[in-house]
């Protein structure tokens, strides 16, 4: 009984820590992105609110929270509200299967820095990734606007084509690791002393593409396409309800998918112990934010694709590539 209670408390603390840290980072990622975009675009970015504009996310949050939130007259209200939840929940749930470091002992309790170390973690990732599209589709449908509707349909088309590629690209890693548990995959890489990116470079590139597509970043941001669809699926939302969509899609999703890429391909928390006891966590965050930075960098550099090009690339180029990759991996893994 006490065992269960203690486990429950430990899990609760872990949840609070992860939520607090990543929602906070998510908010500050907006500051980082704006600063980065500013410097890429030869301007300053936010600099007036607080030192280096560091209080800008707070100001934005207050602004969004205090704004009047207009709901369209003919909106489907339950679905309209549900869309917000459906957008943010899967993105947060993704963090539950991410291992941030190795097991450690605290007050004689063995603690794994992962919320739930299930042995089907990667399956869960796919499941949550697919669920995320509901937020977009619901918002497009419920707001009863043609722009939003078109945007959400585009997103659906992208997700459908890229979910498949995502699954196949990860399959190679699973074959090598022999497990679906995220901790197990990292352990496998540490035991071999090699990151899976070395064995699976093609899969890594495919995964990056899928990551961009899933998180709706340039060059796959067709569901937003502000020039054509104003801002697409969230055009009828206002206030914090509007703020949740980019937070979930652009920041939380990007972070979570980068973290999973780190686990799958970049050896998770492995790295030389140069920062003392915290070094696994630092390594994990460094790798993860390296990928996040890459995504932001692309966002502020490239133009965007067309919907038909994206699906075409997805089905005609990336899917065959990923299948070939899986087959070759399977054969090689079987022989060795």
């Amino acid at each position, binding site marked *: 009984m006490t065992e269960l209670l203690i486990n429950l408390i430990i899990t609760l603390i872990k949840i609070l820590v992860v939520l607090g840290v990543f929602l906070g980072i998510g908010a500050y990622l907006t500051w980082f992105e704006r600063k980065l975009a500013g410097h*890429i675009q030869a*301007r300053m970015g936010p600099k007036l609110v607080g030192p280096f504009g560091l209080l800008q996310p707070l100001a934005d949050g207050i602004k969004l929270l205090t704004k009047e939130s207009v709901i369209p007259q003919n909106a489907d209200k339950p679905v309209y509200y549900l869309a917000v939840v459906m957008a943010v929940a899967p993105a947060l749930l993704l963090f539950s299967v991410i291992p941030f470091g190795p097991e450690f002992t605290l007050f004689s309790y063995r603690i794994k820095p992962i919320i739930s170390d299930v042995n089907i973690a990667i399956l869960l990732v796919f499941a949550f990734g697919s669920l995320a599209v509901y937020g977009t589709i619901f918002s497009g449908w419920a707001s009863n606007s043609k722009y939003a509707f078109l945007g959400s349909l585009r997103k659906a088309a992208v997700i459908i084509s890229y979910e498949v590629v995502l699954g196949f690209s990860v399959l190679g890693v699973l074959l090598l690791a022999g497990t679906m548990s995220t901790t197990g995959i990292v352990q496998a890489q540490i035991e071999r002393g090699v990151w899976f990116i070395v064995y699976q470079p093609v899969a890594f590139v495919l995964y990056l593409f899928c990551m961009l597509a899933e998180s709706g970043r340039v060059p796959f941001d067709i569901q937003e*396409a502000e020039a*054509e669809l*104003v801002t697409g699926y969230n055009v009828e939302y206002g206030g914090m309800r509007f703020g949740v969509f980019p937070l979930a899609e652009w920041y939380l999703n990007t972070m979570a998918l980068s973290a999973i890429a780190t686990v799958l391909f970049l050896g998770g928390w492995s790295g030389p112990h140069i920062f003392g006891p915290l070094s696994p966590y630092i390594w994990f965050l460094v790798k993860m934010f390296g990928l996040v930075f890459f995504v932001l960098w692309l966002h*502020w550099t490239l*133009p965007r694709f067309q*919907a*038909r090009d994206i699906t075409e690339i997805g089905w005609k180029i990336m899917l065959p590539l990923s299948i070939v990759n899986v087959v070759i991996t399977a054969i090689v893994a079987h022989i060795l």
Partner: protein
Amino acid sequence: MPWMNRATADRVKFEFKDVEVEFTKHTTNLHVKQERLIDLMKHLKEKEGYRHFIDHTCIDFPDTKERFQGIYILYNPDTNERVIVKTWAKEGKLPSLEKLWACARWAEREAYDMFGIVYEGHENLRRMFMWEGYPYHPLRKDFPLEGIPEVELPSLTELYAGRTDPPSHDFELVHTRVPTLEDLERTEKARLQKKAQLVLNWGPLHPGTHGTIWFLFDLDGEKVVQSDVILGQLHRGMEKIAENIYYFQFLPYTDRMDYISAICNELSYATAVEKLLGVEVPEKARYIRTMFAELQRINSHLLWLGTGALDLGALTVFLYAFREREKIMDIIEGNAGFRLTSAFLRIGGVHYDLAEGTLDVIKAFIKDFPNRLKEYHNLLTRNRIWLRRTKDIGVITREDVFNYGLTGPVARGSGVPYDIRKLEPYAAYDEVEFDIPVGEVGDVYDRYLVRMEEMVQSLRIIEQCVAKLEKLPKSAPYVNKEHPAVMSPKEYVFMDLEDMVKNFRIVVHGENAPPGEVYSSGENPRGELGFYIYSTGGSKPYRLRIRSGALYNLSIFPKLIQNGTIADAIALLGSLDPVVGETDR
């Protein structure tokens, strides 16, 4: 640009006995009876090679029997000759030329809107700029300048408040009765074909339309089955205003047309008026004009580049382009005193002499700008995504260039080397060296490349102008103040009695232009901006017609976007680059 020569005119005269040929000082006019108009136009287009449609408009003579005279301006790209065809409307009717030139449709709709002339055989004779249900025709001479106060645009609010007239702005409520839609009947039929179709409303305020144009797209999925363009949101009646003020007073109004290339507009207008008045422009002024027009061209192309890339999702190019644009703005501001609507030119010269240090700043800009251009090329030109979005999208054939009266970079992108700066040099364009870039395919990508290369050529022109201006003495005149119709610069007005009296006379009585007519045009960043001035003597033009390049370039949009997607529409619109201030005037 030369006008139709005597040999051709004689041939036409031989073919059409009742055609009267009139050689005026600035133009060649063919007068034809209304019944023979289509035959003559067909002959000119097919036999004589006058296949480029430049403009159509009307003049109202309330005192004559037929009252309305139709004016058609055509261009022969083989011999580089223009001709004006004139015909009197019979009982307020003219035959429609839409079978011969597709863009005549829009020009005729505009004339219908402004003069109330009925075009027989026009497929969709609707109002172009004014709203449907408006009972008057503003460019008629009996229409008062201040308008008719009881009639104003009905608004949505008024409709909800119980007003009975159907407002043309509310598409949902009265959409079968909104008759400003291009090709409404066909559109309606198409709309009924399939239930799954969606009508997407773009504008009048939409980030993709670069102003206040209203588009309607009939979508089948993402595919555009049909599209309508509704103009007139920014219609200010420039031509009506011009008829009621002196020539020099209209100059600042031209700034407000294509507000992105104000100095180019002024240059076109000033050239036309100077031709009419017979004003010689001093050398220094010509070079200053050329230099600033080219700076303005770069400025305008940079805006096009930035917004075009922004439309396709490349967010950074926008700010890179604006950074350079800001430098040009500063140069213009330093000389003219204004950034956007600069009113820098004057009839007979420029308003101010070059400001101290201008040439040094421009030289620094010339030195720096090629590197910036390289940056844009690095970001876009060979970018695979950019290529995919722009290649083979919106291909314009050479025939369509002539059929739709396309000019400027849009025409040159399709391989038609139509550039007024070469064909009819004005300012100092005949004394500087530059090339005309042309495209091969005529798609969005070619138009992009053409504009990018045009910036390089503009830079070349500016460089030569700077070299020339450095050699000219500081005391060289920048305005031809000897001419009786040209106002003297301020420094003389305060010092010299004669200059003061002259200025006083011009401001009060106007320039007193001789009777006659002029069609003169300039090569604007958005195509040929032409001014057709019909003067019956006196200080105000009897009729001033503005031939807008952007309007004609836009007229091909509904055709090009068919079977494209919404995402293509944005790329295409960016490459046609209309500015609503000029399309609506």
